[in-house]
């Protein structure tokens, strides 16, 4: 029973350790030593793209957003109070960034609304804004949270939008994770292999019991042998003709019903 549990636990530990190690190594290589996570999307749209606080303001580090228009186009990018951004975009058609996907480092989005967006640049509600031909980069500082970022391409489409977050501790955590996974993997393997080693080592050599002298014929008494000639402690009943030694223990798994061959009690019973 214990051997089976050990084997299962060892296998589980090894698998979990392997998975954690792989994940840790993958994250470490993806994030780099700087711990920079970069998420991107390619909306190819002229509609405003809205990135809310549920994406921008969930970390303590600054978030750097870069918008790139198609060739020849320009980009307007601005930060506002979330309610202000919602009000100015209104019900017009726009793309909302809803989250990120770590698997492919992508920004997740959905398109909602109908109609053309108003002239966003005319509004006097932006906390920070920039517009230029070519790529525009804006840094979201968490001290100003919550904020919503609105991006709109002009004279072309929005080719790409990237969001970059740098947290050095992420790389450290990835490495630590990989090491923990490695440890679990080793422990699991040791548990698996240690079972066999320990099993063979546990096969104890049974002490050989002193074999009483075999009488010539079972059930007969030598008339010359005085009964109780010694100190009177000798048995007065006939001894068995033979002493049968138990069969040698094999490496077969234990069962609940079979006697444990390693148990001295079982042997001498």
């Amino acid at each position, binding site marked *: 029973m214990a051997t089976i549990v050990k084997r299962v636990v060892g296998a589980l530990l090894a698998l979990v350790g392997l998975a954690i190690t792989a994940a840790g190594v993958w994250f470490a290589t993806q994030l780099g030593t700087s711990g920079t996570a970069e998420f991107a999307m390619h909306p190819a749209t002229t509609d405003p793209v809205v990135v809310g606080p549920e994406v921008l303001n*969930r*970390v303590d580090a600054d978030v750097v957003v870069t918008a790139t228009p198609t060739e020849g186009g320009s980009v307007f990018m601005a930060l506002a109070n979330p*309610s202000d951004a919602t009000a100015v975009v209104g019900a017009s058609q726009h793309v909302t960034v809803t989250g990120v996907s770590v698997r492919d480092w992508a920004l997740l989005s959905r398109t909602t609304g109908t109609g053309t967006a*108003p002239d966003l640049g*005319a509004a006097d*509600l932006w906390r920070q804004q920039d517009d230029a031909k070519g790529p525009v980069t804006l840094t979201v500082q968490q001290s100003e949270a*919550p904020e919503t970022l609105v991006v709109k391409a002009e004279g072309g489409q929005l080719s790409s939008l990237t969001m970059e977050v740098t*947290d050095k501790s*992420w790389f450290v955590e990835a490495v630590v994770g990989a090491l923990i996974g490695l440890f679990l993997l080793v422990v699991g393997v040791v548990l698996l292999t240690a079972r066999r080693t320990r099993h063979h080592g546990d096969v104890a050599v049974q002490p050989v019991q002193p074999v009483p002298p075999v009488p010539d014929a079972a059930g007969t008494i030598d008339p010359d042998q005085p009964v109780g000639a010694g100190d009177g402690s000798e048995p007065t009943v006939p001894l068995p003709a033979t002493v049968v030694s138990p069969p040698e223990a094999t490496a077969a798994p234990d069962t609940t019903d079979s006697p444990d061959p390693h148990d001295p009690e079982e042997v001498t019973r």
Partner: protein
Amino acid sequence: MTPRPLPTTRTLSRLVASTTLLGALVLAGCGTQDALVGLHPAPAEQTAAAPLDAEGATAVAARLLAAKDAPVGGDAKAAKAARAEVLTGDALRVADAQATRAGTPAGTTELAAEPQPTIVAQSQGRQWPRAILASTLDEATNTQWLHAMVSDKPDQPFRIASSVPMFGGAELPALGEQLAGAPLLDTAQKNGLAVSPAAAVKAYAAALAQPKGKATDVVAADDQFATSLKTAAAAQAKALGKLGTLAQTHDPQLDDAITFKLADGGAVTFGLMKRTDTISVKPTAKELVLPAEYAKLLGKKKVTKSLVLNNLEPIVIVQPKTGQGRVIGASDLLVSGRGR
């Protein structure tokens, strides 16, 4: 040699405990993942505050004040459109009237530095319309100006809705902490005051009427503006003598009025009055010869029956929570007239 018994029970317990702990960690990983990478919920937005920070509001005010005085090219239509980009409400009405009267686009070509605005208050909350109350000091005349700027809709920029010079020694009570914002009030409602701001302006207008105003205890009518109007009217009446009579009325025009709540529960209102001076020529007079200013405005030098002159009067009136209100700033501008 006695064989060592296997620690079956103890080992089993340890293994089960370890497996359980590991499983718990793996399963809980889904919940602790956010904490591990430092993710937390985004902070909630504080909506009961000024919509812009001090820097943003100052930038808006500075931009508008600079644009207001910027020279405008093109014809009268282009100039009117340019004014509408910067001004709205009473300020636009006054500026358009001024441009019509002058016949040239408003603006200055002087290279003097624009006075830097000081943000006195912003409207409170995230709703529209929004307003900024700013002040500037005209160092040439040592006059403090109050400017109310308004954004009516989310996609519309702020525009100057009223600019009024303060009287010397006049005081605008505090509107509260700037970033907290000051609530905008409905001018027609009492808002916990003795009378509504609209009623206060109306009472003030009635008190200024000539030849006999209507006394009121709602608002004081002894400020510089009221005094100078009375003095000028008296001088005019005296000059006319037996040749004519002067009647002067003030009509509140509060469609675009803006009222901020003061920190002490009072209110400050930017309003507009239209003043009408009517000079009736008595039968004993053959005609009245107009001064050059009026002659240019009317396009005639004499009138035989009557002369009507229209002025626009932006005012700022402060009402305390209790007690008498007081006008702290005003100006008037002759905008049109007709004569017979």
